[in-house]
């Protein structure tokens, strides 16, 4: 089991890719630790985690079917 995480904006630029494959993790907190270890500089950025197109605030268990995305601060409009 693994996730194909979607990366956007500045995070995609930092990773040099628009997706990142990571092994299964239990929850969003573990996910954050994992992706921060993989993408240099990410830890310094106040990014959001979206699961199934909703922002997760705090922690949450991750289903194996979860659609995960990492979102840097918004700047639309």
């Amino acid at each position: 089991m693994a996730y194909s995480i979607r990366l956007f904006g500045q995070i995609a630029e930092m990773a040099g890719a628009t997706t990142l494959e990571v092994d299964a993790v239990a929850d969003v907190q573990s996910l954050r630790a994992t992706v921060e270890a993989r993408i240099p500089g990410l830890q310094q950025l106040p990014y959001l985690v979206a699961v199934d197109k909703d922002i997760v605030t705090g922690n949450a268990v991750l289903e194996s079917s979860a659609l995960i995305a990492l979102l840097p601060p918004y700047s639309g409009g």
Partner: protein
Amino acid sequence: MDKERKIKNIFVQGAVAPAFVAESIAKHSTKTDIGAHSIFMGQVRADVIDGKTVAAIEYTTYEEMALEKMHEIREAIFRQYPLTCMHIHHSLGRIAAGDICLFVFTSSGHRKAAIDACAEVVERIKKELPVWGREIFDNETHQWKENK
């Protein structure tokens, strides 16, 4: 996705043309219960940062999520205000300084609803839509914007 209203696309490739705004306005002349229109437009500024000038902003989005979020915002605004209609267009891709990158258009019988709804939609778009703008400088370096 059986929601009350259909999820609408708000994204357009490239700038919003003034002629498009005019067409949108003209279409409302048959809706004679409208007494007030409020429009907000965002325009790309040629900000000067550390001696470099912004030549354009390149917009990207997490489209599926942005459209769902926009749908939620639209439904909430229609519940809050007695609007006749609401139209939203956000640019994607490279938008040159001086061009329009956001067009929000609300109409109502009376001015207060149209004006307040328009202002609130703009705030929510800036705060809640997963859209990113990369400011491209005249020397082709860039920096990422962040909404306040």
